[in-house]
């Protein structure tokens, strides 16, 4: 089994790129791999807790919680990007980490595979 590091800077609402990232993470974890998910830019909003579920928008937090509970999945948001968007530490999803960008580069160093899921 290997380690996959997924990065993304896409917004959790208004685009489907983060849906791809989470579904890929879920499939990898279900196959026994470990996954690091790094979120920067607009993607850090996904780290806010208590997103309300409207059916016009994808709701990824239920899957994220299951992934976090699996023990084979880490989710880390860029602290500066989050702060710039008013996403405060005390409103961060339980289990989601906050770190500077060098954490992501270190995760890539130790990863077997890396994919950056783009689109703003």
């Amino acid at each position, binding site marked *: 089994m290997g380690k996959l590091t997924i990065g993304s800077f896409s917004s959790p609402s208004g685009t489907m790129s983060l849906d*791809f990232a989470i579904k890929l993470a879920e499939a990898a974890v279900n196959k026994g791999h470990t996954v690091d998910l790094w979120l920067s830019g607009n993607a850090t909003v996904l780290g806010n807790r208590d997103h309300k579920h409207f059916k016009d928008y994808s709701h990824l937090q239920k899957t994220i919680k299951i992934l976090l509970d699996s023990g084979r999945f880490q989710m880390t948001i860029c602290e500066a990007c989050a702060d710039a968007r008013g996403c405060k530490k005390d409103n961060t999803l339980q289990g989601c980490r906050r770190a500077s960008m060098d954490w992501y580069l270190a995760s890539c160093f130790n990863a077997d*595979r890396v994919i950056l899921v783009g689109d703003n």
Partner: protein
Amino acid sequence: MKLCVFMSEYRSGYDIVKRLEAEKLGIVLVGNSVYHAASDNKAEHCMLPENAELYVLAEDLECRGIETAKLASEFRVVTYPDIVDLIFDEYEKSVWI
């Protein structure tokens, strides 16, 4: 290198992917790029590199109302678990365009 390219747009990014060189090149159509796989117009397929293995994400086809039975034969329909295997077993590097 063995390179897996995820194409997510219908019109943009093809200039970039056309000049990528790899000993093994895979193109995975996701998002709106899946419309290329459904087109009867061969010119649409020509936007993709000739030497590439072509894959298309089943979930994104169905999401857009495209039946997999109508796809051209050069496209292999894959699921998210299949993509994990492509990333780990078939290719060394992956990029999203």
